[in-house]
């Protein structure tokens, strides 16, 4: 069982697993998904790409930043059946640029980088109790 102790102004509570089994009745305020102050994930509420997302690392800001942005935007807005099939040229440009900076863009996983980021980055949503899932769909506003 849990027990409680007071040391001056500090209170200490020890709890067992059973004590914490019942769901919490603490109330949290619902988040507004369109709150402009909040840090956004990869996709903004209006559907645009958030180039400042930490999940992108330095991809959008480095020397090949503009090529990356073009390729990725093309992919993101692509309505083709095979998403991004019309964006081959952009991706090729990006790849060429990246090959010039092997230090920055290690060659082995660079092809995986762009599409992978889109699915992985969904996990940067603000309040995801405990585990963050990499497989959350990315369409629509980021769940809060």
């Amino acid at each position, binding site marked *: 069982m*849990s027990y409680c102790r007071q*040391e*001056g*102004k*500090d*209170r*200490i*509570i*020890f*709890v*067992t*697993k059973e*004590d*914490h089994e*019942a*769901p*919490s*009745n*603490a*109330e*949290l*305020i619902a*988040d507004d998904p369109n709150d*402009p*102050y*909040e*840090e956004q994930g990869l996709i903004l509420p209006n559907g645009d790409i958030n*180039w*400042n997302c*930490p*999940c*992108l*690392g*330095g991809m*959008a*800001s*480095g*020397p090949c*930043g*503009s090529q990356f*942005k073009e390729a990725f935007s093309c992919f993101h807005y692509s309505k083709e059946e095979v998403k991004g099939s019309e964006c081959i040229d952009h991706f090729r440009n990006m790849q060429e640029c990246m090959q010039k*900076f092997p*230090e*920055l863009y290690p060659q082995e996983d660079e092809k995986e980088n762009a599409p992978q980021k889109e699915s*992985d*980055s969904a*996990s*940067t949503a*603000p*309040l*995801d*109790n*405990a*585990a*963050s*899932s*990499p497989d959350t769909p990315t369409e629509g506003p980021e769940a809060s």
Partner: protein
Amino acid sequence: MLKCRTAWNKLAPLARSSSTVCRRNVRGTGLTNGRTPICVPATHMSSGAGGGGGGGGWDNTIYAVLVGAACVGGMTLTYKTLKEDQRRYEERIAEIASRPHRQEALTSSEPAELEVVPSSEADPTAPEVEVEAEVAPEVEVEAAVAPEVEAVVAPEVEAELIAAPATEAVSPSESTELPPAAESKPSSATFPSHVPYLLIGGGTASFAAARSIRARDPNAKVLIVTEEPDLPYMRPPLSKELWFSDDSSVTETLRFKQWNGKERSIYFQPPSFYIKAEELGSSENGGVAVLTGRKVVHMDVRGNKIKMDDGSEISYDKCLIATGGIPRNLQVIERAGEEVMKRTTLFRKIEDFKALDKVSRNVKSITIIGGGFLGSELACALGRKSSEFGLEVVQMFPEKGNMGKVLPEYLSNWTTERVKREGVKIISEALVKSVSFIDDELEITLKDGRVVKTDHIVSAVGLEPNVDLAKSAGLEVDSDFGGYRVNAELQARSNIWVAGDAACFYDIRLGRRRVEHHDHAVVSGRLAGENMTGTSKPYWHQSMFWSDLGPDVGYEAIGIVDSSLPTVGVFAKATAKDTPKAAAEQSGTGIRSESETEDTATSPVASTSPATVVEHKDDYGKGVIFYLRDKVVVGIVLWNVFNRMPVARKIIKDGEEHADLNEVAKLFNIHED
């Protein structure tokens, strides 16, 4: 110039006595139309003569003549001086223009006055006339970019001189010489004279801002100016991971192995990420350039430019000040003489790490003064090496236990025990009275009489925010927290933002504060960068911080974590799996700052093997501690509980009064991994 002032001083008493006479007369004769004699000498003379004719006419006339003469004399002197100055100035300009390739040699003090001078020229009254004379000698700036400087000075001086009586042919170097951007003199070929985005300081906040600007403003041209010789790097590994490295060349490579096995450099990006400063102007895709080894000594807010220690200037559209701070030192050490100072390390930069690493291999005993984050981390890091190097590590501080100002007493005591286990000799409640160098050793005498003999001291007693530019830029400095005072959007004045350790900002939720943590530098740098590109978002995403005291004790925290606040701690029994190492392995991140994470966190792998429960009485294995201010949670420490930061952030953001904090603690699932 002085003649003018002495002349005026001589006339003043005369004028005073005359004016009292005049006033008496004026009242007497009923001339109370409000016109003071000083202002309208001509008319007064006539009226004075007429009005004064009734009584005391003789005094009146004398007075009128004297005052009139004084005014005319003053005006003449002013006019003459101005004209003379102007002539001299023009001569100087011509002379300087004829010697365009002089090397710079001046100290920064002279050019500095250049900026101060024009602003005081507005009022051409006698005392200030002297100041204008200084314009001429000051203009003798022999900086490499002299012609550019004059171009800027000319329009300024010109503007002020318009106020003076004589203004016609003001300056030959008219506005044909527009903003220095247009000119690129041969001597400034190493860097551009104008950049859209200028970042002062090359640390974490600056880099985060550069990245943010580049992400939001395509093809942005960003220039970072730093005093250090290094490219931007992250600081936390300097007191943690780099010390745990097995690599003997770590001081050169500065690479560290993260717990997840991945190795990385402390530099945010390799040199190929940046472009050369001289290419910044011509690059069509823009880029980030870094000027190392330059100190910004002066900031001209009106002219939107800064001056560096070599005399050269750069103008900007938007500027970020991210100058961080300088480690504080104890006064007793500073006064103790050179031998002591030589054996004292103030730890902050890469060179300090290299130096301390070298020292730790060559001495028998090191004492760390300071029981906060840096002191404790270094003590643990060195403590681990103590057996390897045969090194005695002592840590002393005025509090009762490590992290005494951060953790509640019971936890601070527990932490201290852990630090001792890392091989550190702890001397608590220690106030240093004096330090001396005797018999080839340092002797630290404490106020209670204890004496500690050691070979080397590391002073980790806090950080002094660097506000050197406050004076020249006219920026406000906060008296409570130190640092530049900025608003919730991190803006100090138009076009100037401040981020990182040096920023005392307004936190909408928690009030005005200044935070000296890595994640805050990232968050605030990113926010400032965003705001520099046109948004106005306030500081809202609460930054976190963390500390590891060895591989077994680690915590993450967020908000105001001050041990003087009442706290409520909810603890579970720790299992062997709850260590910082395990946490990092699970989450796939190497460094626990969330804003840094380039590898996104993957879901923690649920352990299938039964956890061995470590049973200790009152063992604060893992739990969560709430810090309260007026019954609202303003800070949370996650003690050996990881990957729950979003929950903690949410609770602080809500700012609600919770009746039962045990219920809130349930949200953290502290019993699980």
